[in-house]
């Protein structure tokens, strides 16, 4: 299934379908910057050697909103749903779905749920000790 003309995005959503979050990491010596979304070159050092890594899926809620008014009829069945910005432990920030009861600063882990035309990451409270 094709979700985007961008090959990086295509790979991201394919992995999400299989329950993984991937990001890019710069391979240049002394850099190693994580990058999300993945791009052909490193934001920090402009290096062109990047490798795709799998994130552990754990992180911290940076902000969260609860959408009660979805953009289309097709998505109305899911409302209300939480959309969060999550700071992953690997050092990058991403948007994803989240349990609407979460608050800023909460420790979270990724689960994967169907939403609209695809499977999306959805963060829930991390219960592990």
């Amino acid at each position, binding site marked *: 299934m094709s979700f*985007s003309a961008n090959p990086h995005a295509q790979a991201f*959503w394919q992995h999400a379908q299989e329950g993984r979050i991937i990001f890019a990491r710069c391979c240049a010596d002394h850099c190693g910057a994580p990058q999300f979304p993945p791009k052909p070159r490193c934001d920090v050092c402009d290096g062109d050697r990047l490798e795709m890594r799998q994130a552990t899926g754990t992180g911290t809620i940076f902000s969260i*909103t*609860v*959408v009660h008014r979805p953009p289309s009829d097709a998505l109305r069945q899911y409302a209300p749903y939480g*959309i969060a*910005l999550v700071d992953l432990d690997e050092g990058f920030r991403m*948007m994803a779905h989240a349990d609407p009861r979460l608050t800023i600063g909460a420790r979270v882990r990724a689960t994967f749920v169907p939403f609209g035309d695809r499977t999306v990451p959805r963060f829930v409270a991390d219960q592990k000790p």
Partner: protein
Amino acid sequence: MAYIAGVGTTRFGQHPGSTTSGLMADAARLAMEDAGLARRDIDGVLCGYATTMPHIMLATVFAESFGLRPAYAHAMQAGGATGVAMAMLASILVDSGRCKAVLIVGAENRASGQTRDQSIQTLAQAGHPDYEVPYGATIPAYYGLLAARYMHQFGLTQEDLASLAVVMRRHAARHPEAHLREPFTFEQAMASKPIALPLRLLDCCPISDGGVAMVITRDPTNATRVKVRGAGQAHLHQHISMARDWADMGARRAADLAFAEARMGLKDIQHLAVYDSFTITLAMLLEEIGFIARGKSGEAARAGRFEIGGDMPLNLHGGLLSFGHCGVGGGMAHLVEAQRQLSGRAGDRQAGAPTTAYVHGDGGVMSSHVAMILERV
């Protein structure tokens, strides 16, 4: 420096049967009449994009249908900042000697020219098509994320946001062309239906039909003497998930450039016209620029500082929140109100006799900032 010689606004609201080109022409006619200029006097045309009338050459389409043959013309797009950005470019064009009189136009039948869902989906494209939009994100959701974090970081509350909404509606009630004029109470704002929490319905601007135009000239053309004294921009990100420092979205940077050019400071400003797509937008802009201390916008609203008789009259036309939002024209209405206030022509809304005004436009999700300082000379 350039003069804002003429301004024009159509009524904002639901105008079934209206068209984008019709609203553009109505607003342009009013602005040219106000400036006292005829078609042959206009040698530059800038117009904003229109979501209901996408075109690769909208300014030329408009010029042709309106009967203009300018020496300089193109459309511009910087989201909600487009209007102030057009005014900035128009003033550069006349300052450089390239043009004598530039007509700038922003109009759209955004409310009646498409369904509400279409409008919401089109606007959501300000977000990242691959990493934000697929989550069912909307413009209110992006601003909901801003609101939640900002409230957490700076102590702003739901009550503070509601206080700003109440003030904008009270202002709009005095403007015959405003979209929403029925006053509401603080309690009604707090209880309005959730859209993208913490934002509720009355924290969000409406979707309107409407048009706004201005003529920016090298020389005065009538009795008004409102000059562009300084302008500045900043563009630090496009997508909210990419914004790095949430205390530095670019608003202050744009303002600093405008103040430096005008050789003025915050204390010199007597009138404010600040972009307010959502209550949180208004609070964040006022506070980042420095007109109000962090987290104190609601308190300032309740203390009456933004009223006609206050020390910082703000968006006396009612802002996007209540005058309405037709896209590019919505962000131009702030400029128009500032021009009318500075030239003493705001009627029931006139707040004393200000000589200076600060105007701010914001595009995307606090992504593009354009600041402008006006002065009556």
